[in-house]
């Protein structure tokens, strides 16, 4: 600057460097009882700089006044959101006046941030708005665009902190559009704000400039993601999270494992929304990027050093977490496909299958188009590896057994990986959740299997993996998990029983069932009833009393279990009339319970509408059957 002599200028630069140092480094060491000591010191320095600049401006004012006085702008506060054309008017950022405004603005900006950091929000706001006012007189240029973005980021944070999310949104969205327009129209590496106060020899390289500028914009994206999340616009929020991740990757500003885990988590958002292509992309990228975190240290290495053992644990756990996200992907894909294909009794609807297969070609084309327009992760070197992982599993709904099986196998592979880390000893809850997913994978696959015998075997696999664990768990500490497992086991046995019966009926159309089948059938029937009963018993008080009032979260399961127990008892096959009678009585008792409970607690009716209706009917019908049986017994005697 012309009228600062070099010594004066150097002094200002030193002050600035000092202030930066105090804010960023020293302030971390401030004591608890004086937490803002360094920040206050920095503030004082910034104020001095401000005064120097101001006094200089006052001296300069005369010669330059023609330019300034000609520009009579309204003094009202600039409010973002009603976007002004910051590119078209005002003086150029490169002009001396423009540079002066930018410098003063930068000091105001730093003062603003300083005040916000020290919890003086309104003072901070004032400084930031002063900065906005100064910039208002300038056109966006490579000299000042960084400040344009930064000040809006800060104002966005400030307003979001006050719960005025819409105001925050305005500032951040303007920042976004300024960035985009600048990159389109100019795009040269912009001056960083710190460079306003450096001597010539300390100017940044172009690379460093770009890096800092892009990082500021990454933050804009990240803040917008949070703003949209707080506004309840989850889809937009997800898009901005996605963009943030993508930018971190592109600009090489990330730690691999953290990034991978975030991408994997984001995939879970996509799969719950049914957007499997995006979900798969996130997961594939997560897998590839997590490999950048390095090799997992061997067990031997881990035993030798604590640091290595910690690293091993860390890497294995994170990879297992990503594997679990993959499991959920496969599971949801299969389950959603099933929903598309099943008829009203839960069996494969072949008409629907043909229809969907016809539509498939169209979908494939759309997938191709979608891929092109979607936000993709990856730099040149990772792009291919991500694509190759994507190819291993489909993202369209599987429509037949072969396709379903391929998805299942991928899922099962990840189950093995995840279980390898989340072992029963040490990670009980996680381990069981994985097993439950594995079981659910089998269940979903079984739907596609046409061969009843094999379908039954799949269910048997489910029983095998859950039964021992359910019985091994401490009933006190794992009450809730055990309830889930009991219910699932009961339902699985029930399903197997149904399958066996259908099979037997199909094979032996005319003749009655043979002894072996009956035995098998009764075994499955009683196993199912046993687990439902275990579930119901788990609701009892320590004294063994069944609760009079069911808590909301167990209301439906408990009533459904009763209903199913009733049904199972009436299905037992026995030739002995006394056993038959006994079973029918038990059945009636349970149906009655459902009806009576709903009478006493009308609020429960909505939860079990169909079951209640059937129970009522059965309560009417069963006594007749029982009486008939009794009559027959009497006459036989």
């Amino acid at each position, binding site marked *: 600057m012309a009228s600062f002599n070099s010594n*004066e200028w150097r*002094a200002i630069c030193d002050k600035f460097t000092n202030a930066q140092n105090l804010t960023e480094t020293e302030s971390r060491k401030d004591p608890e009882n004086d937490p803002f000591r360094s920040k206050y010191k920095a503030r*004082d320095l910034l*104020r*001095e700089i401000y005064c120097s600049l101001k*006094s200089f401006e*006052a*001296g300069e004012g005369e010669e330059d006044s023609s330019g300034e006085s000609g520009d009579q702008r309204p003094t009202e506060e600039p409010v973002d959101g009603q976007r002004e054309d910051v590119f078209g008017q005002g003086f150029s950022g490169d002009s001396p006046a423009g540079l002066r405004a930018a410098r003063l603005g930068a000091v105001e900006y730093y003062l603003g941030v300083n005040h916000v950091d020290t919890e003086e929000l309104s003072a901070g706001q004032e400084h930031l708005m002063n900065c906005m006012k100064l910039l208002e007189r300038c056109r966006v240029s490579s000299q000042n665009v960084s400040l344009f973005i930064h000040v809006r980021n800060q104002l*966005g944070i400030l307003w*979001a*902190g006050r*719960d005025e999310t819409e105001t*925050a949104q305005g500032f951040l969205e303007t920042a976004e559009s300024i960035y985009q327009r600048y990159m389109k129209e100019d795009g040269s590496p912009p001056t960083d704000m710190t460079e306003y106060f450096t001597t010539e020899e300390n100017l940044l390289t172009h690379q460093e400039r770009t890096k800092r500028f892009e990082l500021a914009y*990454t*933050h804009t994206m*990240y803040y917008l*993601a*949070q703003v949209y*999340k*707080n506004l309840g616009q*989850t889809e937009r*929020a*997800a898009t901005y*999270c996605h963009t943030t991740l993508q930018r971190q990757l592109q600009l090489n500003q990330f730690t691999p494992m953290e990034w991978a*885990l*975030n991408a*994997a*988590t*984001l995939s*879970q*958002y996509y*799969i*719950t929304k049914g957007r499997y292509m995006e979900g798969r992309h996130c997961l594939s990228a997560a897998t590839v990027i997590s490999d950048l975190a390095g090799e997992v240290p061997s067990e031997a290495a881990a035993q030798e050093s604590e640091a290595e053992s910690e690293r091993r644990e860390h890497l294995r756990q994170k990879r297992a*977490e*990503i594997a*679990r*996200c993959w*499991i*959920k992907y496969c*599971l949801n894909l299969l389950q959603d496909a099933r929903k598309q294909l099943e008829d009203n009794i839960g069996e494969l609807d072949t008409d629907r299958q043909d229809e969907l297969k016809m539509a498939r070609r169209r979908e494939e084309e759309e997938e191709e188009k979608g891929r092109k327009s979607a936000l993709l992760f990856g730099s040149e070197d990772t792009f291919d590896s991500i694509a190759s992982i994507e190819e291993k599993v489909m993202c369209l709904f599987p429509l037949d057994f072969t396709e379903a099986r391929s998805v299942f196998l991928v899922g099962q592979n990840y189950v093995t990986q995840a279980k390898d880390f989340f072992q029963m*000893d*040490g*990670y*009980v809850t996680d381990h069981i959740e994985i097993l439950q997913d594995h079981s659910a994978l089998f269940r979903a696959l079984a739907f596609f299997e046409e061969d009843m015998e094999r379908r039954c075997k799949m269910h048997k696999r489910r029983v095998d993996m859950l039964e021992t664990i359910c019985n*091994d768990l*401490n009933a*006190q*500490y*794992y*009450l809730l998990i055990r309830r889930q497992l009991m219910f699932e086991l009961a339902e699985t046995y029930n399903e197997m029983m149904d399958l066996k019966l259908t099979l037997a009926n199909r094979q032996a159309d005319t003749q009655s069932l043979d002894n072996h089948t009956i035995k098998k059938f009764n075994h499955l029937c009683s196993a199912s009833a046993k687990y439902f009963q275990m579930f119901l018993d788990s*609701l009892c*008080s*320590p*004294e063994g*009393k069944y*609760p*009079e*009032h*069911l*808590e909301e979260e167990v209301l439906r399961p408990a009533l459904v279990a009763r209903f199913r127990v009733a049904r199972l008892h009436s299905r037992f096959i026995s030739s002995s009339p006394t056993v038959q009678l006994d079973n029918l009585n038990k059945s009636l008792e349970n149906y009655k319970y459902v009806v009576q409970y709903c009478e006493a607690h009308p609020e429960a009716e909505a939860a079990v509408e169909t079951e209640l209706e059937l129970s009522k009917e059965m309560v009417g019908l069963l006594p007749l059957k029982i009486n008939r049986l009794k009559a027959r017994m009497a006459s036989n005697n």
Partner: protein
Amino acid sequence: VMSKNKSSESVKVVVRCRPLSRKEESSGPAGGIVQMDLRLGQVILRNPRAPPSEPQKTFTFDAVYDANSKQRELYDESVRPLIDSVLAGFNGTIFAYGQTGTGKTYTMQGAWLDPEKRGVIPNAFDHVFTHISRSQSDKQYLVRASYLEIYLEEIRDLLDPNHTNARGLELRENPDTGVYVQDLTSCVCKSIKEIEEVMNVGNQARAVGATDMNEHSSRSHALFLITVECSQPGPDGRKHIRVGRLNLVDLAGSERQAKTGVQGERLKEAAKINLSLSALGNVISALADGRSGHVPYRDSKLTRLLQDSLGGNAKTVMVATLGPAPQHYDETLTTLRYANRAKNIQNQPRVNEDPKDALLREFQREIARLRAQLNYRKWRSKQKNEQMEGESWDGDREKETEGEEDEEVEKEAEEYVKLEEQRLEREKEAIRGDEYMVAEEKQRLLGEKERMMVDLRKEQEATEQLTAKYKAMESKLLVGGKNIIDHTNEQQKMLEMKRQEIAEQTRNEREIQQQMLAQDEETLELRETFTSLQQEVEAKTKKLKKLYTKLQCIKAEIKDVNDEHVKSRQELEQTQNELTRELKFKYLIIENFIPPEEKNKIMNRLIFDPEEDQWKFQPLVPAESVYFEMHGLNFY
């Protein structure tokens, strides 16, 4: 009255208010803002900033304790039943929750030396060991204690002497025992003295690890865990083991909850924007929060460790502590609201019958094994003795029959060794004396004898070790009715029982009172089945009145907030007006009395000195030289 679910029971919440401190008494003219109705278990909170017409806020709890309450009362009424159920094999947790400086630590620990002022923890110790000493002698007990703290999401073992430099402990899970802290020190305690010692060691470790004790303790959660295992022969003749776990939790100051990240309070921060990209994971997790997806996100350590106690399978008492001073109004209200919400957490307590993990069973098994080994050795040595006697020795050792006592075994073993040594020596002699034997063979035989001697000694050592181990094991077990000598204190026992009865009755009374209130409300509603229009009108008016007061309450709350804003705005406006007036005045002076040239000169020379917070004139001497001079001074 609605039927209650028998299998679940809510968290019991009691509230305690400390007295006004002398400082508060002198500074605040208005006195306390907390009123308590001990009979009804109600806390009435007065807003010091509100007009007297405003309705006060009332909260109802399981029990309330005012400034005059004694430690003993709180213990007998609210804690004793919980400890009793721990002794019966339930899990129990006691939380202390409240703003720093409201007496959490006083409630939990109290003053150890003064029996009147001892807090929940020392009383609980006393309770546990007195119970053990008075139980029947067929019961065996094992008491273990652990002490840890959670500070900034790191678990630190306070009983581990190296805990300050060791890294944080990990939470793990086991199918038999649920969530546990890996490698946590667990001390077996045989007496009150021992467990108090454990507590002291931990407290010291806590103080040492922290640079600023107050600051530290208000930010960290301290957990003292006691496990009581009890074995008793059942009617089937087998021994049944019950395990009760007691968690005594001193939570971080409630004003820090938001920062330390305990449940619930996090919501408040939800609207704020996270500045650092490192929190991107939280943002994404919040989006992906669905049941069908997996979110690699862990609960806080405290929540995981106590998951049984919060909505899980345990009996829980929460003691919320309040400060009565007007300046604590906001914090106190927050604490009360939080405590009120805690009432709704449902627990499912269950007796831990025969859990496979029980250490006690392990102990018993180990003892049985050791005893068997000992017996076997004894039997073997006797066999050898007999053998030997048959060979060379004519002794009168017959009378030594199989005594069960260890001393006998020892004595016997000792003698056996002596004899054996003598025998070997003699044989050695014999070999040496055998002239005809080949030298080599002689050497070999001698060596063999030598080895046998060594073996013998080893065997003896092993037996000794076994005996020692056996004794150590057995000493860890406490047997009911044996260890503590206060059998004679029957009177004290009676006294305690009476006290307990009284406590029980107070509790019942309060419950009935609360029920009565509830029933009053219900009768009002029952009257809705009207016989005449007039009654209906009456009832409706009553109801209207009730609703009206409720409305007033809420209105008042809204007004509160508004008033606060208005007041601060007015203040700001006033300041602004004053400043503007002054500024105008100054401008007027400048315009009218100072020529513009002078003004410019002055303005140019003015500089703001932030250190003294005022404007100063730049010296007329060129600034540069002064600047350098000053620097020069600084340097040399």
